[in-house]
């Protein structure tokens, strides 16, 4: 009973992380249209081929394809034919005037409904302000909403990285905050047991910082850069505010460890590094707050990029993102407590010898 009371959060951490891993690797991406060919339409009848991802079309299935803009259905597709499990062709009759030259496509079947923004363009039309529904496509009705991870333009399968990359930074900040608090505690009491926690927290925090950097670099290479070849040096790093912040943080804490190693006595190590830890942490937090307000970032939520909170983090992703954050944070604290015990044991061993 006592053991359960003491260790329940470790079991929770394991459960949450197993859930995160299973969910983020096993749940399929939602079906969507990836491309249309030709993507630029002319006035009059157009036959275009829509290529999908995970769509799994079947012969004889009811499929609605329509062109939309501003929540209005403008043109309904006719003569929809299934060419292969991931390909259909549809006919669209483009009128002389539409509300926009860049248009969205919606696809509906009995199994799912998908929306692809800015998939087709019609440059030869005139732009008017008529925003009434021009047609209604309601042959297909999705009966149930399947469990799937949203499929976003450009992100595609890499969206699964959300459950790993983002929680790494949250955990790192938590662990560095713990280190900061224990450095302050040390300076109030000059008790070395607080210094051990502050030091081990920096070690664990750096581990999470490197994991966050690695997952972020891989993610950036395959979404932000055009160099998707693994064996080039291009595309791994971009000049972005948040990347600069991450680099600064990592450098500060590596410097902290070097500072510790260049001092001699334990008390001096503890005192000087605690002073540096507090000084650097406060400045780092201020900079992380200030800098993103001065510059745009490629990250979601900055400079006109779609924010995760607004569009991308739908209810399915929330179902796994928040548990993932909590799970990684608990894992970080667990690792910290193990490192602390190990350091204490080491100290008693040295004392006995």
């Amino acid at each position, binding site marked *: 009973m006592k053991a359960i009371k003491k260790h329940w959060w470790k079991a929770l951490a394991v459960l949450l992380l197993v859930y995160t891993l299973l969910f983020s690797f096993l749940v399929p991406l939602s079906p969507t249209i990836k491309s249309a060919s030709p993507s630029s339409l002319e006035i009059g009848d157009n036959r275009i081929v829509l290529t999908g991802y995970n769509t799994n079309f079947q012969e004889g299935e009811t499929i609605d394809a329509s062109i939309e803009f501003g929540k209005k259905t403008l043109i309904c597709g006719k003569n929809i034919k299934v060419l292969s499990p991931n390909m259909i062709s549809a006919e669209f009759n483009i009128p002389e005037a539409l509300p926009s030259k860049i248009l969205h496509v919606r696809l509906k079947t009995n199994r799912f409904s998908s929306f692809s923004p800015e998939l087709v363009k019609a440059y030869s039309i005139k732009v008017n302000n008529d925003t009434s529904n021009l047609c209604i496509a309601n042959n297909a009705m999705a009966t149930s909403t399947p469990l799937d991870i949203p499929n976003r333009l450009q992100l595609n399968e890499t969206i699964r990285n959300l459950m790993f990359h983002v929680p790494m930074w949250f955990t790192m900040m938590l662990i560095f905050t713990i280190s900061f608090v224990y450095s302050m505690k040390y300076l109030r009491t000059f008790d070395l047991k607080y210094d051990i926690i502050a030091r081990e927290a920096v070690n664990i925090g750096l581990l999470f910082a490197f994991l966050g950097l690695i997952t972020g670099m891989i993610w950036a290479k395959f979404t932000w850069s055009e160099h998707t070849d693994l064996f080039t040096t291009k595309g791994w790093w971009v000049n972005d505010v948040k990347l600069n912040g991450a680099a*600064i943080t990592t450098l500060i804490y590596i410097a902290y460890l*070097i500072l510790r190693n260049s001092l001699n006595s334990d008390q001096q190590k503890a005192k000087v590094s605690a002073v540096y830890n507090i000084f650097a942490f406060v400045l780092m937090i201020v900079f992380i707050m200030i800098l993103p307000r001065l510059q745009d970032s490629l990250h979601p939520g900055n400079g006109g990029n779609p924010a995760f909170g607004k569009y991308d983090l739908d209810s399915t992703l929330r179902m796994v993102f928040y548990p993932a954050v909590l799970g990684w944070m608990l894992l970080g604290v667990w690792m910290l407590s193990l490192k602390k015990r190990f350091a204490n044991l080491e100290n008693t061993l040295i004392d006995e010898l």
Partner: protein
Amino acid sequence: MFIKNLFHLVRHELKLEMKQKHFLSSIVLYIVSTIFVCSLSFTSIEDTKIWNALFWIIILFSLTNAISKSFLNENSDKQLFLYTLINPRVLILGKILYNLVLSVFLVLLSFFVFNFFIQSDGLKDINFSLFLLAVVLGSMSISSTLTMVSAIASKTNNNIGILSILAFPILIPSLLLSIQFSNLAINGGTAEMATQFIVFLSLINLLIIILSFLLFPYLWRE
């Protein structure tokens, strides 16, 4: 009492500087020779952005060199003597204040030397007073950070190496702000456009001084 001690200390540092002229002259020579070496490879820089970046890099390294000596010169006996006489908080404020004066002097000097050796055609529409403000504010935040970090680094054996490792990551953000601010001034920006830079840089300066004020007493107590 506090203020009186502070001014005593700053005056004491200034007197010391005047007595040991070799230190100030060595740092001035350092700046002039660095700029001269740069001028050999860039006789004139068309792009004001590169001109600006080179200027700030020279400032960063010359200030690191100048301020790294602020705790190095004092041997432990003299330090002990000082510590028994005055409050450590007065000591760090005095050092910061003195280094602010020194760095503003060095930065203005390097600006004139830099402008003398390396011309840029893009500097026609420079807002000179705003540029000076950017340079002064930026060098103040650099020098106050370096003063505190050099106090930390003076506790180790490998002083200068540790100083740059510890200070540069903390300096990157205020350096970025200063570079953007002076870029704005070079391109003829007005004070209204630079309000956020002025506010942020002043706040950072204030924060660094407050942090040093609070943390320094823990450093010297053996």
